[in-house]
Protein backbone atom coordinates (compact mmCIF):
# COMPACT_ATOMS: atom_id res chain seq x y z
CA UNK A 1 0.00 0.00 0.00
CA UNK A 2 1.18 3.48 -0.85
CA UNK A 3 1.18 6.06 1.86
CA UNK A 4 0.39 8.77 -0.67
CA UNK A 5 -1.20 11.79 0.84
CA UNK A 6 -3.84 13.86 -0.81
CA UNK A 7 -2.75 16.91 -2.76
CA UNK A 8 -3.43 19.28 0.11
CA UNK A 9 -1.58 17.26 2.73
CA UNK A 10 1.70 19.01 3.54
CA UNK A 11 4.89 17.36 2.31
CA UNK A 12 6.73 18.65 5.36
CA UNK A 13 4.96 19.53 8.59
CA UNK A 14 7.13 20.70 11.48
CA UNK A 15 5.62 21.72 14.81
CA UNK A 16 7.53 23.00 17.80
CA UNK A 17 10.72 21.23 16.77
CA UNK A 18 13.41 21.40 19.42
CA UNK A 19 16.99 20.29 19.44
CA UNK A 20 19.29 20.53 22.40
CA UNK A 21 22.99 19.69 22.48
CA UNK A 22 24.06 19.48 26.09
CA UNK A 23 22.65 22.65 27.61
CA UNK A 24 22.47 24.61 24.36
CA UNK A 25 19.15 24.87 22.53
CA UNK A 26 20.00 24.94 18.84
CA UNK A 27 16.37 24.72 17.74
CA UNK A 28 13.88 26.35 20.03
CA UNK A 29 10.42 25.66 18.66
CA UNK A 30 10.62 25.61 14.87
CA UNK A 31 7.32 25.58 12.95
CA UNK A 32 6.77 25.42 9.23
CA UNK A 33 4.94 23.61 6.46
CA UNK A 34 5.92 22.77 2.88
CA UNK A 35 3.32 22.03 0.23
CA UNK A 36 3.69 19.90 -2.81
CA UNK A 37 5.81 21.37 -5.61
CA UNK A 38 7.12 24.23 -3.49
CA UNK A 39 10.77 25.27 -3.43
CA UNK A 40 11.62 26.36 0.10
CA UNK A 41 14.83 28.04 1.17
CA UNK A 42 15.84 27.80 4.79
CA UNK A 43 17.94 30.91 5.20
CA UNK A 44 19.95 31.98 8.20
CA UNK A 45 23.32 33.01 9.55
CA UNK A 46 25.96 30.33 10.13
CA UNK A 47 25.23 28.28 13.20
CA UNK A 48 21.51 29.10 13.19
CA UNK A 49 20.55 25.42 13.05
CA UNK A 50 19.80 25.02 9.33
CA UNK A 51 21.83 21.84 8.92
CA UNK A 52 20.45 20.38 12.14
CA UNK A 53 16.91 21.02 10.89
CA UNK A 54 17.48 19.44 7.49
CA UNK A 55 19.25 16.42 8.99
CA UNK A 56 16.32 15.81 11.33
CA UNK A 57 13.94 15.94 8.35
CA UNK A 58 16.20 13.58 6.37
CA UNK A 59 16.02 11.08 9.22
CA UNK A 60 19.77 11.33 9.82
CA UNK A 61 19.49 12.94 13.24
CA UNK A 62 17.19 12.38 16.22
CA UNK A 63 15.28 15.42 17.48
CA UNK A 64 14.97 16.33 21.15
CA UNK A 65 11.26 17.19 20.97
CA UNK A 66 8.45 18.28 18.68
CA UNK A 67 6.21 16.89 15.95
CA UNK A 68 7.72 16.21 12.54
CA UNK A 69 5.99 14.69 9.51
CA UNK A 70 7.79 14.25 6.21
CA UNK A 71 5.71 12.75 3.39
CA UNK A 72 3.27 11.68 6.06
CA UNK A 73 5.78 9.76 8.19
CA UNK A 74 7.97 10.50 11.18
CA UNK A 75 11.56 10.67 9.86
CA UNK A 76 12.84 9.10 13.07
CA UNK A 77 11.03 5.87 12.21
CA UNK A 78 10.63 6.14 8.43
CA UNK A 79 11.15 2.81 6.68
CA UNK A 80 12.78 1.94 3.36
CA UNK A 81 9.62 2.74 1.38
CA UNK A 82 9.62 6.20 2.92
CA UNK A 83 13.34 6.58 2.23
CA UNK A 84 12.74 5.72 -1.43
CA UNK A 85 10.52 8.80 -1.84
CA UNK A 86 13.24 11.18 -0.63
CA UNK A 87 16.29 12.52 -2.37
CA UNK A 88 19.27 13.83 -0.48
CA UNK A 89 21.97 15.76 -2.27
CA UNK A 90 25.15 15.15 -0.32
CA UNK A 91 28.40 17.00 -0.71
CA UNK A 92 30.78 14.53 -2.23
CA UNK A 93 34.40 14.60 -1.33
CA UNK A 94 36.28 11.58 -2.60
CA UNK A 95 33.80 8.73 -2.18
CA UNK A 96 33.39 6.17 -4.98
CA UNK A 97 36.49 7.58 -6.68
CA UNK A 98 37.11 4.35 -8.61
CA UNK A 99 33.56 4.07 -9.92
CA UNK A 100 32.58 5.36 -13.32
CA UNK A 101 29.80 7.93 -13.51
CA UNK A 102 27.27 5.80 -15.33
CA UNK A 103 28.18 2.71 -13.31
CA UNK A 104 27.47 4.39 -9.96
CA UNK A 105 24.24 6.05 -11.09
CA UNK A 106 23.01 2.78 -12.58
CA UNK A 107 23.91 0.89 -9.41
CA UNK A 108 22.29 3.36 -7.02
CA UNK A 109 19.22 3.42 -9.24
CA UNK A 110 18.64 -0.31 -8.78
CA UNK A 111 17.88 0.24 -5.09
CA UNK A 112 14.78 2.18 -6.13
CA UNK A 113 13.46 -0.31 -8.67
CA UNK A 114 11.03 -1.90 -6.18
CA UNK A 115 9.46 1.39 -5.27
CA UNK A 116 7.80 2.48 -8.51
CA UNK A 117 4.20 3.62 -8.22
CA UNK A 118 1.45 4.19 -10.73
CA UNK A 119 2.47 7.86 -10.95
CA UNK A 120 6.23 7.60 -10.58
CA UNK A 121 8.46 5.22 -12.46
CA UNK A 122 11.62 4.58 -10.45
CA UNK A 123 14.52 4.86 -11.00
CA UNK A 124 15.23 7.61 -13.50
CA UNK A 125 16.72 5.96 -16.66
CA UNK A 126 20.46 6.58 -16.37
CA UNK A 127 21.14 7.98 -19.82
CA UNK A 128 18.22 10.38 -19.57
CA UNK A 129 19.44 11.51 -16.15
CA UNK A 130 22.97 12.06 -17.43
CA UNK A 131 21.47 14.27 -20.13
CA UNK A 132 19.50 16.30 -17.57
CA UNK A 133 22.54 17.06 -15.40
CA UNK A 134 24.84 17.50 -18.40
CA UNK A 135 27.21 14.61 -17.73
CA UNK A 136 26.63 12.59 -20.89
CA UNK A 137 30.19 13.32 -22.01
CA UNK A 138 31.57 12.01 -18.71
CA UNK A 139 29.50 8.83 -18.51
CA UNK A 140 32.53 6.55 -18.53
CA UNK A 141 34.86 8.83 -16.58
CA UNK A 142 36.16 7.70 -13.22
CA UNK A 143 34.49 9.79 -10.55
CA UNK A 144 37.85 10.62 -8.98
CA UNK A 145 38.81 12.41 -12.22
CA UNK A 146 35.76 14.71 -12.44
CA UNK A 147 36.14 18.45 -11.99
CA UNK A 148 34.57 20.08 -8.94
CA UNK A 149 31.56 21.33 -10.90
CA UNK A 150 31.01 17.96 -12.59
CA UNK A 151 31.15 16.24 -9.21
CA UNK A 152 28.46 18.49 -7.83
CA UNK A 153 26.27 17.75 -10.83
CA UNK A 154 26.83 14.08 -10.11
CA UNK A 155 25.82 14.71 -6.49
CA UNK A 156 22.55 16.16 -7.75
CA UNK A 157 22.07 13.25 -10.15
CA UNK A 158 22.55 10.79 -7.26
CA UNK A 159 20.07 12.79 -5.20
CA UNK A 160 17.37 12.53 -7.87
CA UNK A 161 18.06 9.10 -9.40
CA UNK A 162 15.13 7.67 -7.43
CA UNK A 163 12.78 10.38 -8.74
CA UNK A 164 12.14 11.80 -5.28
CA UNK A 165 8.93 13.52 -4.31
CA UNK A 166 10.96 15.61 -1.88
CA UNK A 167 14.54 16.73 -2.41
CA UNK A 168 16.90 18.06 0.27
CA UNK A 169 19.84 20.31 -0.60
CA UNK A 170 22.08 21.40 2.25
CA UNK A 171 24.22 24.44 1.35
CA UNK A 172 24.35 23.23 -2.25
CA UNK A 173 26.69 25.88 -3.68
CA UNK A 174 29.26 26.37 -0.92
CA UNK A 175 32.65 26.84 -2.55
CA UNK A 176 31.24 27.47 -6.04
CA UNK A 177 32.52 30.18 -8.32
CA UNK A 178 30.01 32.47 -10.01
CA UNK A 179 29.69 30.39 -13.18
CA UNK A 180 29.26 27.10 -11.32
CA UNK A 181 26.65 28.67 -9.09
CA UNK A 182 24.59 29.92 -12.02
CA UNK A 183 24.84 26.53 -13.71
CA UNK A 184 23.60 24.89 -10.53
CA UNK A 185 20.67 27.27 -10.20
CA UNK A 186 19.65 26.50 -13.78
CA UNK A 187 19.74 22.81 -12.94
CA UNK A 188 17.45 23.23 -9.92
CA UNK A 189 15.01 25.26 -12.02
CA UNK A 190 14.97 22.54 -14.65
CA UNK A 191 14.20 19.92 -11.99
CA UNK A 192 11.32 21.79 -10.47
CA UNK A 193 9.91 22.61 -13.90
CA UNK A 194 9.93 19.03 -15.13
CA UNK A 195 8.58 17.26 -12.06
CA UNK A 196 6.34 18.28 -9.23
CA UNK A 197 9.27 17.85 -6.85
CA UNK A 198 9.18 19.65 -3.53
CA UNK A 199 12.58 21.09 -2.66
CA UNK A 200 13.99 22.19 0.69
CA UNK A 201 17.36 23.85 0.51
CA UNK A 202 19.46 25.55 3.13
CA UNK A 203 21.69 28.49 2.37
CA UNK A 204 23.26 31.46 4.05
CA UNK A 205 23.28 33.25 0.73
CA UNK A 206 20.40 35.68 0.28
CA UNK A 207 20.87 35.98 -3.41
CA UNK A 208 20.59 32.23 -3.80
CA UNK A 209 17.42 32.04 -1.71
CA UNK A 210 15.87 34.84 -3.77
CA UNK A 211 16.76 33.19 -7.08
CA UNK A 212 15.65 29.67 -6.26
CA UNK A 213 12.87 29.77 -3.72
CA UNK A 214 9.13 30.23 -3.96
CA UNK A 215 9.17 30.80 -0.23
CA UNK A 216 11.90 31.78 2.20
CA UNK A 217 12.07 30.76 5.85
CA UNK A 218 14.50 32.77 7.93
CA UNK A 219 15.95 30.79 10.81
CA UNK A 220 17.59 32.83 13.53
CA UNK A 221 18.12 32.16 17.18
CA UNK A 222 16.63 28.66 16.86
CA UNK A 223 13.26 29.90 15.50
CA UNK A 224 11.67 30.72 12.18
CA UNK A 225 11.51 34.51 12.36
CA UNK A 226 10.00 35.05 8.91
CA UNK A 227 8.15 32.93 6.37
CA UNK A 228 7.02 34.22 2.99
CA UNK A 229 7.87 34.82 -0.66
CA UNK A 230 10.88 37.07 -1.32
CA UNK A 231 8.53 39.96 -2.21
CA UNK A 232 6.33 39.48 0.84
CA UNK A 233 9.35 39.47 3.11
CA UNK A 234 10.72 42.64 1.59
CA UNK A 235 7.36 44.41 1.98
CA UNK A 236 6.83 43.10 5.47
CA UNK A 237 9.57 44.99 7.20
CA UNK A 238 9.57 48.50 5.88
CA UNK A 239 6.92 48.95 3.27
CA UNK A 240 8.88 52.09 2.40
CA UNK A 241 10.87 52.89 -0.67
CA UNK A 242 14.02 54.94 -0.81
CA UNK A 243 14.10 57.85 -3.29
CA UNK A 244 17.37 59.64 -4.14
CA UNK A 245 17.88 62.61 -6.41
CA UNK A 246 20.03 65.68 -6.92
CA UNK A 247 18.91 69.28 -7.36
CA UNK A 248 21.20 72.24 -7.92
CA UNK A 249 24.23 70.04 -7.18
CA UNK A 250 22.90 68.88 -3.78
CA UNK A 251 22.02 65.26 -3.01
CA UNK A 252 18.70 64.32 -1.38
CA UNK A 253 17.41 61.10 0.13
CA UNK A 254 13.84 60.46 1.19
CA UNK A 255 11.92 57.37 2.37
CA UNK A 256 8.38 57.23 1.08
CA UNK A 257 5.54 54.77 1.53
CA UNK A 258 4.03 55.93 -1.79
CA UNK A 259 7.08 56.40 -3.99
CA UNK A 260 5.17 57.05 -7.19
CA UNK A 261 3.13 59.83 -5.64
CA UNK A 262 6.20 61.34 -4.04
CA UNK A 263 8.12 61.43 -7.33
CA UNK A 264 5.10 62.99 -9.14
CA UNK A 265 5.05 65.74 -6.51
CA UNK A 266 8.78 66.19 -6.86
CA UNK A 267 8.61 66.77 -10.60
CA UNK A 268 5.56 68.99 -10.29
CA UNK A 269 7.46 71.21 -7.89
CA UNK A 270 10.95 71.32 -9.44
CA UNK A 271 10.52 70.01 -13.01
CA UNK A 272 13.77 70.05 -14.95
CA UNK A 273 15.93 70.77 -11.90
CA UNK A 274 15.67 67.13 -10.77
CA UNK A 275 18.54 64.88 -11.87
CA UNK A 276 20.08 61.44 -11.01
CA UNK A 277 16.75 60.08 -9.79
CA UNK A 278 16.88 56.66 -8.13
CA UNK A 279 13.91 54.77 -6.71
CA UNK A 280 14.96 51.73 -4.72
CA UNK A 281 12.51 49.40 -2.93
CA UNK A 282 13.69 47.84 0.31
CA UNK A 283 15.87 44.89 -0.68
CA UNK A 284 15.60 41.40 0.73
CA UNK A 285 18.98 42.01 2.26
CA UNK A 286 17.66 44.95 4.27
CA UNK A 287 14.76 42.79 5.40
CA UNK A 288 17.01 39.94 6.33
CA UNK A 289 19.34 42.14 8.37
CA UNK A 290 16.42 43.71 10.19
CA UNK A 291 14.73 40.41 10.96
CA UNK A 292 17.86 38.71 12.20
CA UNK A 293 18.76 41.73 14.29
CA UNK A 294 15.28 41.90 15.81
CA UNK A 295 15.20 38.22 16.66
CA UNK A 296 18.55 38.45 18.32
CA UNK A 297 17.85 41.67 20.19
CA UNK A 298 16.84 39.81 23.31
CA UNK A 299 19.82 37.51 23.18
CA UNK A 300 22.73 39.82 23.83
CA UNK A 301 25.25 37.02 24.12
CA UNK A 302 24.37 35.43 20.79
CA UNK A 303 23.79 38.67 18.93
CA UNK A 304 27.51 39.33 18.52
CA UNK A 305 27.97 36.07 16.61
CA UNK A 306 25.01 36.75 14.39
CA UNK A 307 26.14 40.25 13.51
CA UNK A 308 29.54 38.89 12.68
CA UNK A 309 27.98 36.26 10.43
CA UNK A 310 25.61 38.71 8.76
CA UNK A 311 28.31 41.28 8.23
CA UNK A 312 30.40 38.91 6.16
Amino acid at each position, binding site marked *: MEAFGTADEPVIDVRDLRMRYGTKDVLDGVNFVARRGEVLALLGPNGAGK*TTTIEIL*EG*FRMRSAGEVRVLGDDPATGGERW*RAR*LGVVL*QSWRDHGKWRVRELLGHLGTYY*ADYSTSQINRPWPVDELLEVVGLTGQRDTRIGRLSGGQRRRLDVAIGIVGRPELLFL*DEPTVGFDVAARREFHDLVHRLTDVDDTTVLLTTHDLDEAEKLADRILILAGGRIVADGSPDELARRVAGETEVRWTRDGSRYVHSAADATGFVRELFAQYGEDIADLEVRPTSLEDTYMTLVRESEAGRAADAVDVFAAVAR
Partner: protein
Amino acid sequence: MSAASTALRTGVARGGIEFRQSLTTGLDLWTYLFPSLVALITVFFMRDARVPGTEFSLGASTLPGFLGMNLALTGLATVAQLLVTDREDGTLLRAKAVPTGMSGYLIGKIVLVGGMALVGFVLQLVPALFVVDGLQLDANGWLTLCWLIPLALVATMPLGAVLGSIFDNPRSIGLIMFTMFGLIAISGIFYPITALPGWLQGLGQVFPIYWMGLGMRSAFLPDAMAAVELGGSWRTLEGFGVLGLWAVLGLLLAPVVLRRMARRESGSAVAARREKAMSRAPM
Protein backbone atom coordinates in the same frame (compact mmCIF):
# COMPACT_ATOMS: atom_id res chain seq x y z
CA MET B 1 10.38 -8.33 -5.08
CA SER B 2 11.07 -8.08 -1.38
CA ALA B 3 13.45 -5.59 0.16
CA ALA B 4 15.70 -8.40 1.40
CA SER B 5 16.19 -9.93 -2.04
CA THR B 6 16.81 -6.49 -3.57
CA ALA B 7 19.44 -5.77 -0.94
CA LEU B 8 21.05 -9.12 -1.66
CA ARG B 9 20.99 -8.65 -5.43
CA THR B 10 22.26 -5.06 -5.39
CA GLY B 11 24.79 -5.90 -2.68
CA VAL B 12 26.25 -8.76 -4.69
CA ALA B 13 26.35 -6.50 -7.75
CA ARG B 14 28.09 -3.83 -5.71
CA GLY B 15 30.65 -6.30 -4.38
CA GLY B 16 31.26 -7.59 -7.89
CA ILE B 17 31.89 -4.09 -9.26
CA GLU B 18 34.24 -3.20 -6.42
CA PHE B 19 36.04 -6.53 -6.70
CA ARG B 20 36.62 -5.92 -10.40
CA GLN B 21 37.87 -2.41 -9.58
CA SER B 22 40.31 -3.87 -7.05
CA LEU B 23 41.72 -6.12 -9.79
CA THR B 24 42.17 -3.27 -12.25
CA THR B 25 43.56 -0.51 -10.03
CA GLY B 26 47.33 -0.27 -9.63
CA LEU B 27 47.43 0.42 -5.92
CA ASP B 28 44.96 -2.36 -5.15
CA LEU B 29 46.92 -4.86 -7.21
CA TRP B 30 49.89 -4.10 -5.02
CA THR B 31 47.88 -5.12 -1.93
CA TYR B 32 47.34 -8.49 -3.63
CA LEU B 33 50.93 -8.89 -4.82
CA PHE B 34 52.76 -7.69 -1.73
CA PRO B 35 51.74 -10.59 0.58
CA SER B 36 52.43 -13.08 -2.17
CA LEU B 37 55.92 -11.61 -2.61
CA VAL B 38 56.45 -11.87 1.15
CA ALA B 39 55.32 -15.50 1.04
CA LEU B 40 57.66 -16.24 -1.82
CA ILE B 41 60.66 -14.59 -0.17
CA THR B 42 59.94 -16.22 3.19
CA VAL B 43 59.73 -19.76 1.84
CA PHE B 44 62.70 -19.13 -0.43
CA PHE B 45 65.04 -18.33 2.45
CA MET B 46 63.61 -21.10 4.64
CA ARG B 47 63.58 -23.77 1.93
CA ASP B 48 66.74 -25.56 3.05
CA ALA B 49 66.16 -25.23 6.80
CA ARG B 50 64.46 -28.13 8.55
CA VAL B 51 61.67 -28.14 11.10
CA PRO B 52 63.57 -28.95 14.36
CA GLY B 53 63.54 -32.69 15.03
CA THR B 54 62.33 -33.61 11.55
CA GLU B 55 63.58 -33.80 7.98
CA PHE B 56 60.72 -31.58 6.78
CA SER B 57 61.38 -28.24 5.02
CA LEU B 58 60.80 -25.27 7.33
CA GLY B 59 59.74 -23.18 4.35
CA ALA B 60 57.08 -25.69 3.36
CA SER B 61 55.73 -25.87 6.91
CA THR B 62 55.64 -22.07 7.28
CA LEU B 63 53.62 -21.43 4.11
CA PRO B 64 50.26 -22.83 5.33
CA GLY B 65 50.50 -20.80 8.54
CA PHE B 66 51.23 -17.73 6.47
CA LEU B 67 48.11 -18.39 4.37
CA GLY B 68 46.00 -18.72 7.50
CA MET B 69 47.44 -15.53 8.94
CA ASN B 70 46.63 -13.56 5.80
CA LEU B 71 43.04 -14.79 5.78
CA ALA B 72 42.70 -13.49 9.33
CA LEU B 73 44.37 -10.20 8.43
CA THR B 74 42.06 -9.71 5.46
CA GLY B 75 39.01 -10.43 7.55
CA LEU B 76 40.04 -8.18 10.41
CA ALA B 77 42.23 -5.39 9.11
CA THR B 78 40.93 -4.99 5.54
CA VAL B 79 37.33 -4.89 6.67
CA ALA B 80 38.15 -2.42 9.45
CA GLN B 81 40.12 -0.23 7.08
CA LEU B 82 37.45 -0.21 4.37
CA LEU B 83 34.83 0.73 6.91
CA VAL B 84 36.86 3.57 8.40
CA THR B 85 37.73 5.08 5.02
CA ASP B 86 34.21 4.63 3.65
CA ARG B 87 32.85 6.36 6.68
CA GLU B 88 35.30 9.22 6.41
CA ASP B 89 34.77 9.92 2.73
CA GLY B 90 30.98 9.69 2.82
CA THR B 91 30.51 6.38 0.97
CA LEU B 92 28.56 5.04 3.92
CA LEU B 93 26.36 8.12 4.14
CA ARG B 94 25.43 7.66 0.47
CA ALA B 95 24.45 4.09 1.29
CA LYS B 96 22.35 5.37 4.15
CA ALA B 97 20.54 7.83 1.89
CA VAL B 98 19.14 5.14 -0.46
CA PRO B 99 16.53 2.54 0.48
CA THR B 100 18.10 -0.71 1.82
CA GLY B 101 21.42 0.91 1.01
CA MET B 102 23.14 -0.12 4.23
CA SER B 103 22.33 -3.80 3.72
CA GLY B 104 23.48 -3.53 0.13
CA TYR B 105 26.67 -1.86 1.28
CA LEU B 106 27.46 -4.58 3.84
CA ILE B 107 26.71 -7.44 1.48
CA GLY B 108 28.88 -5.72 -1.10
CA LYS B 109 31.75 -5.52 1.39
CA ILE B 110 31.40 -9.22 2.25
CA VAL B 111 31.56 -10.14 -1.44
CA LEU B 112 34.50 -7.80 -2.04
CA VAL B 113 36.55 -8.97 0.93
CA GLY B 114 35.68 -12.62 0.30
CA GLY B 115 36.89 -12.25 -3.27
CA MET B 116 40.04 -10.44 -2.15
CA ALA B 117 40.78 -13.17 0.40
CA LEU B 118 40.40 -15.99 -2.15
CA VAL B 119 42.48 -14.30 -4.85
CA GLY B 120 45.11 -13.45 -2.25
CA PHE B 121 45.12 -17.05 -1.06
CA VAL B 122 45.75 -18.44 -4.54
CA LEU B 123 48.37 -15.79 -5.34
CA GLN B 124 50.28 -16.61 -2.18
CA LEU B 125 50.01 -20.37 -2.54
CA VAL B 126 50.69 -21.12 -6.18
CA PRO B 127 54.04 -19.35 -6.80
CA ALA B 128 55.41 -20.66 -3.50
CA LEU B 129 54.61 -24.24 -4.54
CA PHE B 130 57.35 -23.94 -7.16
CA VAL B 131 59.92 -23.12 -4.49
CA VAL B 132 59.27 -25.77 -1.85
CA ASP B 133 58.36 -29.43 -1.87
CA GLY B 134 56.45 -31.48 0.63
CA LEU B 135 53.05 -29.74 0.65
CA GLN B 136 50.21 -32.05 -0.21
CA LEU B 137 46.49 -31.58 -0.47
CA ASP B 138 44.60 -34.85 -0.22
CA ALA B 139 40.83 -35.31 -0.02
CA ASN B 140 40.92 -34.63 3.70
CA GLY B 141 42.91 -31.48 3.12
CA TRP B 142 40.37 -30.18 0.60
CA LEU B 143 37.59 -30.93 3.05
CA THR B 144 39.43 -28.95 5.72
CA LEU B 145 39.82 -25.96 3.36
CA CYS B 146 36.13 -26.13 2.53
CA TRP B 147 35.09 -25.41 6.09
CA LEU B 148 38.15 -23.60 7.35
CA ILE B 149 38.24 -20.74 4.82
CA PRO B 150 34.57 -19.76 5.17
CA LEU B 151 34.72 -20.17 8.96
CA ALA B 152 37.88 -18.08 9.10
CA LEU B 153 36.14 -15.27 7.22
CA VAL B 154 32.98 -15.49 9.33
CA ALA B 155 35.10 -15.46 12.49
CA THR B 156 37.06 -12.37 11.46
CA MET B 157 34.96 -10.13 9.19
CA PRO B 158 32.31 -9.19 11.75
CA LEU B 159 35.07 -8.40 14.23
CA GLY B 160 36.81 -6.31 11.60
CA ALA B 161 33.53 -4.44 11.09
CA VAL B 162 33.31 -3.84 14.84
CA LEU B 163 36.86 -2.47 14.90
CA GLY B 164 36.12 -0.29 11.87
CA SER B 165 33.01 1.09 13.58
CA ILE B 166 34.75 1.90 16.84
CA PHE B 167 37.70 3.74 15.35
CA ASP B 168 36.77 7.00 13.68
CA ASN B 169 40.10 8.03 12.27
CA PRO B 170 42.06 6.47 9.41
CA ARG B 171 45.19 6.95 11.47
CA SER B 172 43.93 4.51 14.09
CA ILE B 173 44.27 1.82 11.42
CA GLY B 174 47.97 1.98 12.28
CA LEU B 175 47.08 1.05 15.84
CA ILE B 176 44.97 -1.89 14.64
CA MET B 177 47.79 -3.12 12.42
CA PHE B 178 50.29 -2.79 15.26
CA THR B 179 48.09 -4.97 17.46
CA MET B 180 47.76 -7.50 14.63
CA PHE B 181 51.53 -7.77 14.30
CA GLY B 182 51.75 -8.40 18.02
CA LEU B 183 49.18 -11.18 17.71
CA ILE B 184 50.97 -12.70 14.73
CA ALA B 185 54.20 -12.82 16.74
CA ILE B 186 52.58 -15.01 19.40
CA SER B 187 50.52 -17.13 16.99
CA GLY B 188 53.24 -19.52 15.84
CA ILE B 189 53.19 -18.38 12.22
CA PHE B 190 56.86 -17.78 11.53
CA TYR B 191 58.30 -19.97 14.25
CA PRO B 192 56.71 -22.68 16.39
CA ILE B 193 54.47 -21.55 19.23
CA THR B 194 56.10 -24.28 21.33
CA ALA B 195 59.22 -22.08 21.52
CA LEU B 196 57.30 -19.37 23.42
CA PRO B 197 56.91 -19.16 27.21
CA GLY B 198 53.78 -20.87 28.51
CA TRP B 199 51.74 -17.77 29.23
CA LEU B 200 52.30 -16.42 25.70
CA GLN B 201 51.28 -19.80 24.29
CA GLY B 202 48.06 -19.50 26.27
CA LEU B 203 47.44 -15.96 25.05
CA GLY B 204 48.17 -16.89 21.43
CA GLN B 205 45.61 -19.68 21.57
CA VAL B 206 42.85 -17.29 22.59
CA PHE B 207 42.94 -15.50 19.23
CA PRO B 208 41.87 -16.81 15.82
CA ILE B 209 45.21 -16.32 14.04
CA TYR B 210 46.89 -19.28 15.74
CA TRP B 211 44.00 -21.61 14.94
CA MET B 212 43.85 -20.55 11.33
CA GLY B 213 47.56 -21.20 10.94
CA LEU B 214 47.18 -24.59 12.62
CA GLY B 215 44.15 -25.49 10.53
CA MET B 216 46.00 -24.63 7.32
CA ARG B 217 48.97 -26.74 8.38
CA SER B 218 46.64 -29.65 9.03
CA ALA B 219 45.30 -29.30 5.49
CA PHE B 220 48.63 -29.02 3.68
CA LEU B 221 51.17 -30.94 5.78
CA PRO B 222 51.58 -34.69 6.21
CA ASP B 223 49.88 -35.98 9.35
CA ALA B 224 53.23 -36.92 10.86
CA MET B 225 53.99 -33.19 11.21
CA ALA B 226 51.26 -32.90 13.86
CA ALA B 227 53.82 -34.30 16.26
CA VAL B 228 55.62 -30.93 16.54
CA GLU B 229 52.43 -29.02 17.38
CA LEU B 230 51.17 -28.33 20.88
CA GLY B 231 49.73 -31.57 22.26
CA GLY B 232 51.14 -33.44 19.27
CA SER B 233 47.85 -33.10 17.39
CA TRP B 234 46.12 -30.88 14.80
CA ARG B 235 43.37 -30.35 17.39
CA THR B 236 40.80 -29.89 14.62
CA LEU B 237 37.83 -29.92 16.95
CA GLU B 238 39.33 -27.30 19.28
CA GLY B 239 40.20 -25.12 16.28
CA PHE B 240 36.66 -25.38 14.96
CA GLY B 241 35.35 -24.52 18.44
CA VAL B 242 37.55 -21.45 19.00
CA LEU B 243 36.91 -20.03 15.53
CA GLY B 244 33.21 -20.80 15.96
CA LEU B 245 33.13 -18.88 19.25
CA TRP B 246 34.80 -15.87 17.65
CA ALA B 247 32.27 -16.09 14.80
CA VAL B 248 29.35 -16.11 17.24
CA LEU B 249 30.82 -13.24 19.22
CA GLY B 250 31.38 -11.19 16.06
CA LEU B 251 27.94 -11.91 14.64
CA LEU B 252 26.32 -10.90 17.93
CA LEU B 253 28.35 -7.71 18.33
CA ALA B 254 28.60 -6.48 14.76
CA PRO B 255 24.92 -5.68 14.07
CA VAL B 256 24.63 -3.69 17.29
CA VAL B 257 27.85 -1.74 16.78
CA LEU B 258 27.24 -1.21 13.06
CA ARG B 259 23.73 0.07 13.66
CA ARG B 260 24.94 2.48 16.31
CA MET B 261 27.70 3.69 14.02
CA ALA B 262 25.34 4.09 11.04
CA ARG B 263 22.82 6.02 13.10
CA ARG B 264 25.42 8.68 13.78
CA GLU B 265 26.29 9.25 10.14
CA SER B 266 25.08 12.55 8.72
CA GLY B 267 26.21 15.19 6.29
CA SER B 268 27.66 17.31 9.06
CA ALA B 269 29.58 14.34 10.53
CA VAL B 270 31.20 13.71 7.15
CA ALA B 271 31.87 17.44 6.68
CA ALA B 272 33.56 17.60 10.09
CA ARG B 273 35.82 14.67 9.20
CA ARG B 274 36.66 16.24 5.87
CA GLU B 275 37.66 19.45 7.59
CA LYS B 276 39.83 17.51 10.01
CA ALA B 277 41.48 15.58 7.20
CA MET B 278 42.07 18.76 5.20
CA SER B 279 43.70 20.47 8.15
CA ARG B 280 46.20 17.68 8.71
CA ALA B 281 46.96 17.07 5.03
CA PRO B 282 46.40 20.11 2.81
CA MET B 283 45.39 18.95 -0.66
